[in-house]
């Protein structure tokens, strides 16, 4: 039996196949596309800096950073100041943080039968949006990162404002999300400890336990993460065995007949990306504990995403402390991009997982551009024999509501997937 459909954010369709009252296969279809990769072809290299953030208004900043880094990787000896690197990393962190808030309050809470509290989602995400705007001029869709650095020249005043936004966000976390010190939350090692606290997050986690949903949403326990910076490490993790030697060349896209989105695999295997994958690769103690107890279930996935908020806030504070405002924001590349033909790629961690950009330039024009988005990894629509990560996680469930919950713990986004 095929049961139609539950639509997700944007336009994707799930066809549920039941056997003996259990889901035995789910077809995933994306029914729209904008063909951005074709639009990029033939355009001047720098145009990608304007067009790509528009691939997605939700993770537009990750696309900007991925674009600028892909273009920069085409150069041999490009210099980027530490200041510019840190500023880019900070704004990317802020994008991740605000995204996690919105996912938790707009998408997750209602699925657990709670009232959707729009203002709880918007308040902290506004703060983080402002923090990005301080450097980038606006959010979404900033263009402040350019090949060679960033364009903003921030002052001590900006730093003070920034610290204020961060403090306010920390306060929101402590007043609402989990009523403990955000710092302690970010270094907490035990799930049982988290469950003792008050707050929206422990409430949901306790509900998962109480309603006996702990076994839901398990997939292969195979994780991958390519984006490297001063916080995230690159690597793959099979259960808890981590291997840091992974290569982007092995990440391959393949077309599917039923969908506008392409599948992505690493050495022919489907991997989960996102906060849970990052935490596993980073060997985060709290998430390792969750994984040991409950595997790659909805419990671990939700905890990994939400706890990343506090970790990134803490790490951002550290980055700010180390900022040297006297360094240059921008160092002019020694070759004009118009004069060369080369190719390059980048990988950054977006809210939902690894985002990869690959570019080929010819005399400064884009000959080819490929974008692999996080949701493509998690939502690859495999066959019955070889299922994608989220497909596998929905198998065996009895009802569509539960499947929807499982599906949405991957924080699917069809907007950038159907670029």
């Amino acid at each position, binding site marked *: 039996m095929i049961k139609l459909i539950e*639509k997700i954010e944007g336009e994707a369709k799930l066809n549920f196949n039941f056997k003996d009252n259990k889901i035995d296969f789910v077809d995933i279809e994306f029914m729209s596309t904008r063909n951005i990769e074709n639009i990029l072809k033939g355009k*001047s290299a720098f145009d990608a800096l304007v067009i790509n953030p528009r691939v997605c208004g939700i993770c537009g900043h990750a696309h900007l950073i991925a674009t600028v880094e892909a273009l920069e990787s085409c150069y041999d000896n490009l210099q980027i100041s530490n200041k510019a690197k840190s500023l880019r990393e900070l704004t990317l962190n802020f994008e991740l943080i605000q995204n996690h808030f*919105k996912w938790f309050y707009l998408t997750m809470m209602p699925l657990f039968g709670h009232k959707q509290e729009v*203002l709880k989602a918007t308040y902290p995400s506004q703060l983080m949006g402002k923090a990005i705007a301080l450097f980038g001029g606006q959010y979404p869709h900033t263009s402040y990162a350019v090949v060679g650095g960033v364009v903003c020249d921030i002052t001590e005043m900006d730093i003070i404002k920034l610290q204020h936004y961060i403090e306010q966000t920390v306060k929101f976390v402590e007043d609402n999300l989990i009523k403990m010190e955000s710092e302690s939350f970010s270094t907490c090692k035990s799930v049982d400890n988290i469950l003792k606290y008050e707050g929206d997050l422990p409430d949901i986690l306790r509900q998962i336990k109480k309603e006996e949903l702990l076994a839901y949403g398990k997939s292969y326990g195979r994780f991958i993460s390519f984006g490297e910076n001063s916080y995230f490490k690159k690597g793959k993790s099979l259960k808890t065995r981590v291997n840091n030697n992974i290569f982007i060349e092995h990440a391959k896209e393949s077309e599917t007949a039923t969908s506008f989105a392409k599948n992505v695999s690493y050495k022919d295997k489907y991997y989960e990306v996102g906060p849970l994958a990052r935490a596993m690769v980073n060997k985060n103690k709290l998430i390792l504990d969750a994984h040991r107890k409950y595997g790659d279930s909805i419990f671990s996935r939700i905890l990994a995403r939400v706890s990343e908020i506090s970790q990134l806030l803490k790490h951002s504070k550290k980055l700010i402390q180390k900022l040297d405002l006297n360094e240059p924001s921008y160092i002019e590349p020694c070759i004009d991009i118009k004069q060369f033909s080369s190719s390059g790629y980048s990988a950054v961690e977006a809210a939902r997982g690894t985002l990869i950009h690959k570019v080929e330039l010819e005399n400064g024009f884009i000959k080819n551009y490929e974008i692999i988005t996080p949701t493509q990894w998690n939502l690859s629509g495999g066959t019955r024999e070889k299922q994608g990560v989220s497909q596998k996680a929905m198998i065996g469930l009895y009802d569509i509501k539960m499947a929807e919950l499982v599906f949405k713990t991957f924080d699917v986004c069809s907007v950038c997937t159907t670029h």
Partner: protein
Amino acid sequence: MENKALFEKLSSRLDELSNLPKLDDEKSISRLIEEKGFSRREFMGWAGAMTSMLMLPASFTPLVAKAAEMADRLPLVWLHMAECTGCSESLLRTATPSIDSLIFDYISLEYHETIMSAAGWQAEHNLESAMERYKGKYILMVEGGIPHGESDFYLTIGAHGKTGEKIAREASENAAAIFAIGTCSSFGGVQAAYPNPTNATALSNITNKSVINVPGCPPSESNIVGTLLHFILYGTLPALDAYNRPKWAYGLRIHDACERRGRFDAGEFVEQFGDDGAKNGYCLYKVGCKGPYTFNNCSKQRFNQGTSWPVQAGHGCMGCSEPDFWDKMGIVHEPLGNRLYHTVFGGLGSDATADKIGVGILTVTAVGIAAHAAISLIKKPKE
């Protein structure tokens, strides 16, 4: 005198609205304000700012406040077409202290895919029933370009697998007012950039009804909320420019109200990002600012609750509220000026495409720019 007549007109419009039933009896703006910890004074302060944005005299503030209170009388349907959801994101970031977001919590948002919790059949049902129930009364806001003609299947939505074009057309049919939010629905947007593989087009091209364009990529939250308030206040369409953009928001060029304008006039330009000029806030024209060709109020309203805007951060305007800015405004970090650059039109210079940009004022601007900016000095030669 003129003002008095207008004041009376708007008052009676609001009185009329107040006779309409509230869509949700439970909610009232004063209760919401109180619940969220704002004072009436803060609310009035917000209304004052909105009043000046809508180019009304300060004495109209109580009317604008009342308009906000009436916001729950008009149901709102928000459709997503081919887009990146950036406009919704912009709206979701409305002001803190979040009186704008209060309005947003308060309006009767009958249908919005991203924010509403319903999905699938339920979502589609919500849309259909809202359109039926509020026939001729709802405000339609559309985000996203519309894959059109032969290839409208590039966007199929919902349980019944309807195409975006069909849904947008149906929703336009019985709307009281139609707003194209963002450059995508106003002009086709990024997906309509050359070679426009999905045949994306503006909302105004698929309906015969008048569409008010609120472009920008994304438009600022205040332009979105302002558009809504304007309609509540007037009940009619605002004064529009040649591209159907409300004049209260898109009446001036970025360049006209830019904080770096004095530098421009003095001939002080950033020659290269990161140089001393950049540190001292010189004009960004030579590193690609398209402010002289772009109509929008970014410099006044700014983004993210007035935090900043691109030019303040040191990046030139790229003309995101103009039609087809991707293709017509040239390479992003180079001035439009008289340079020859490779465009999708096959290497024509900007002058050849200039007549397609702006509202004919360009020539005047171009003269001004020629007088101030020595364009040949743009870039030092590199090896």
